[in-house]
């Protein structure tokens, strides 16, 4: 019964989304406040209806209602409850439902918190949101309905893909979708601005926090996905340049560019047209990512949906939205008045440079991902574009970008003093150079590339610290005053420093792991010991173990460091009986910031087993850096300037604390 209720709610939500997309738009055109006012209740009701549908599907999974085809295909009564819950979006239909739920949440938030927006802008934004919701609800209802019943109902389900039976599934897709779909707000605002032919600083002040929030979630989602692949796939890699990964990375790159250009627009009302275009492109990348993953057009490790009718449907949505918004842009962009002037050497100029490199990098990844598909469909020829290509093209694009990051926040708006900034960064540069020499001469086996990469990472971290030190006046004023100023710095300054330092931390992890890891592939018998990076691992043999829906062989290793016992490392080979699928569960031991990674291979005669052991120095920094970037975003969101509804509270705030001269 509740399943039919969910289905019905979804149909109703579709009808409502149609109303939401047409009526406020028409109202804004006619200047009718009553028609425009339809947007908010429609968005909120849509949220309630889609929540009901989602809850109905969750209930079906929890009850293991195998009369629902979707539950039967992806669940099993013996599956642990947490995976019954996360399994809701561990499949095509459910994940699309999660997609529209998150879209509805964002639409609801605009309806709730958008009271202080100009009514026509609010109406247009909600209408665009309505269009997106209607398109995807129609997609779900017509090609990917999760509520289809089976008659007669099977006794037992087919279980969830074992790779997905992991806590990663609880976190990764929701975070990723919060990012993907969060950019729909920036998109809706951009399209609304084009419809109205007007953008101003208030527009940018609204768009920035939403972009920042979406960016934060996407950063977390990508990092979580990377860590999940790292420990689950058993190859010890953290980034594979897989098309599906690229699909999530593309909106991150353009979204990062958008984040920065929106700053220019808000503070200096320059780069208006470019910011609007970036907002459109970023959500287009999100849509493209959805298309690539959901259509199964890329046959990649992640793609678990293959059905051409869906592909054609999403492609139509893609063309409609991307083509439509770009056509609107071409038609209306000239109506947006150009904004403030600036010298190439200025904060604005630095942010333009940031945008130039980030969009070029995004285009490189985009072309690399799509080139084989396009080439094959045009000429029939097949080529592969993989990690070696991306490392060779993306890497060199990032180096100059990262090298100029510390300059950005120190340059003045409008017209900066490059020599002066270089002088102020002298200490940071000296520190980074010191690190380069230290790594090159004192770490065994460190190549020049490793040393330079480490230096670049520290340059970013030291640069961020320099920014904070200079803005609190270290060197110019006494320590007491500096400390007081430091505490009084705007949150966004901390956010910037934290995010830029986080970038350096991630880079440090990547450089250390890729250039200085050690690796052993060998056969061990019980009682034998393997030496790696100063640690000893003694293999103790395999022990069978039975889990709730799997059986496994656990290989136990006793870890010691110069005779000191550090406990066991357990690595196992699992077998999921329902799907007849084996998986590896790598044995990972974190020591400091580094990790020991043990993966089991085939058993051979007389009790031996093939093992793959890595020592991955500083590998955890890759993801800790991403957490720092997220924290930077969160801190920045708490900035008074960005807080939702800030304009109304601004006056009082300004009296309490003067804006720092920037």
């Amino acid at each position, binding site marked *: 019964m509740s399943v039919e209720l969910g289905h019905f709610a979804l149909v109703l939500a579709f009808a409502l989304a149609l109303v939401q997309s047409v009526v406020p738009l028409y109202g804004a055109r006619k200047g009718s406040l009553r028609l425009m006012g339809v947007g908010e209740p429609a968005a909120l009701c849509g949220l309630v209806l889609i929540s009901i549908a989602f809850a109905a599907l969750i209930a079906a999974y929890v009850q293991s209602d195998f009369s629902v085809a979707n539950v039967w295909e992806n669940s099993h009564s013996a599956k642990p409850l947490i995976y019954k819950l996360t399994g809701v979006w561990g499949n095509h239909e459910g994940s699309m439902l999660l997609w529209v739920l998150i879209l509805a949440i964002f639409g609801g938030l605009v309806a709730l918190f958008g009271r202080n927006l100009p009514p026509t802008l609010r109406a247009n934004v909600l209408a665009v949101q309505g269009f997106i919701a209607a398109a995807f609800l129609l997609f779900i209802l017509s090609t990917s309905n999760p509520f289809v019943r089976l008659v007669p109902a099977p006794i037992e389900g087919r279980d969830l893909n074992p*790779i997905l039976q992991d806590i990663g599934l609880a976190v990764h897709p929701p975070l990723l979708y919060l990012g993907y779909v969060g950019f729909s707000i920036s998109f809706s605002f951009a399209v609304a601005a084009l419809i109205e032919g007007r953008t101003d600083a208030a527009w940018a002040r609204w768009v920035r926090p939403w972009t920042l929030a979406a960016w934060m979630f996407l950063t977390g989602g990508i990092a979580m996905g990377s860590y999940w692949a790292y420990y689950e796939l058993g190859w010890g890699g953290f980034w594979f340049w897989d098309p599906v990964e690229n699909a999530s990375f593309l909106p991150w790159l353009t979204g990062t560019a958008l984040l920065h250009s929106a700053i220019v627009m808000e503070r200096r009302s320059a780069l208006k047209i470019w910011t609007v275009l970036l907002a459109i492109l970023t959500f287009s990348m999100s849509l493209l990512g959805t298309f690539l993953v959901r259509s199964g057009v890329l046959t990649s490790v992640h793609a678990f949906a293959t059905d051409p009718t869906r592909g054609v449907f999403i492609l139509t949505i893609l063309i409609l939205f991307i083509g439509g918004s770009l056509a609107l842009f071409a038609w209306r962009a000239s109506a947006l008045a150009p904004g403030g002037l600036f010298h190439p050497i200025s904060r604005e100029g630095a942010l333009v440079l940031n945008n130039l490199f980030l969009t070029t990098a995004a285009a490189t990844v985009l072309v690399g991902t799509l080139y084989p598909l396009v080439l094959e469909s045009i000429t029939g020829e097949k080529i592969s574009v993989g990690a070696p*290509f991306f490392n060779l093209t993306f890497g060199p694009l990032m180096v100059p970008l990262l090298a100029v990051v510390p300059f950005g926040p120190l340059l003045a708006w409008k017209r900066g003093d490059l020599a002066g900034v270089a002088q102020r960064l002298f200490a940071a540069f000296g520190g980074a150079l010191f690190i380069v020499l230290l790594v090159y001469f004192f770490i065994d086996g460190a190549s020049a590339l490793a040393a330079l990469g480490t230096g670049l990472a520290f340059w970013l971290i030291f640069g961020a610290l320099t920014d904070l030190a200079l803005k609190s006046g270290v060197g110019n004023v006494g320590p007491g005053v500096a400390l007081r100023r430091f505490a009084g710095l705007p949150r966004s300054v901390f956010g910037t420093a934290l995010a830029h330092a986080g970038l350096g931390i991630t880079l440090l992890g990547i450089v250390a792991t890729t250039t200085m890891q050690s690796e052993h592939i060998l056969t061990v018998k019980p009682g034998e010991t393997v030496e790696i990076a100063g640690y000893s691992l003694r293999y103790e043999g395999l022990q069978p173990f039975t889990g709730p829906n799997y059986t496994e062989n656990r290989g136990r290793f006793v870890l010691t460091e110069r005779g000191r016992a550090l406990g066991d490392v357990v690595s196992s080979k699992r077998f999921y009986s329902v799907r007849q699928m084996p998986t590896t569960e790598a044995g990972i031991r974190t020591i400091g910031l580094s990790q020991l990674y043990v993966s089991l291979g085939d058993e051979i005669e007389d009790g031996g087993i093939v093992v793959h052991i890595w020592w991955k120095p500083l590998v955890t920094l890759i993801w800790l850096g991403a957490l720092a970037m997220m924290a930077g975003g969160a801190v920045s969101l708490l900035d008074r300037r960005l807080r939702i509804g800030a304009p109304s509270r601004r006056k009082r705030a300004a009296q309490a604390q003067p804006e720092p001269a920037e």
Partner: protein
Amino acid sequence: MRASFSSESILTPDPSLQEGGKSALRQFCRHIVLALAACFLLAQPAFAVQPDEMLDDPALERRARELSAELRCMVCQNQSIDDSDAELAHDLRVLVRERLKEGDSNEEVLDYVVARYGEFVLLKPRLNMRNALLWGTPVLLLIIGSALAFSTMRMRRGREIAPLTPEEEARLRKLLEEQESGS
């Protein structure tokens, strides 16, 4: 659909197979089926390089690993033969090592593999006319982008505002100081 996609890709670029007898073809197909099974069962104990494949000479083995990372496991989805545990990847890894033992340079090994399996096997496509757009995109965009940015800025500089006069600057400094002491 995926299966046919992959098997076509392997069968077409390889002329040696058409010359070889039917049994070779059949055996090859069986390989593919096995390898496909390995790939699509996805989470096969993910294990690529086996100890018995490895060369005794560490320098040669390192080169073999580097080359393996550049060669695609053709029955897999975006996996290099270094990462894949498919049968075909195993065969290719052994082949690469055999060529290296024969004294081939890295380039020669790649040429040898491409001659047998076609360019599809390279994860880093060669720089030629067909792939010009692929390799050209970053360079081209960077040039066009910088040109656009600069020309926009120069166009605007025509109406740039005059810098502050010394008197104005002095007044500005005074105002800023007042604000500072007031806080």
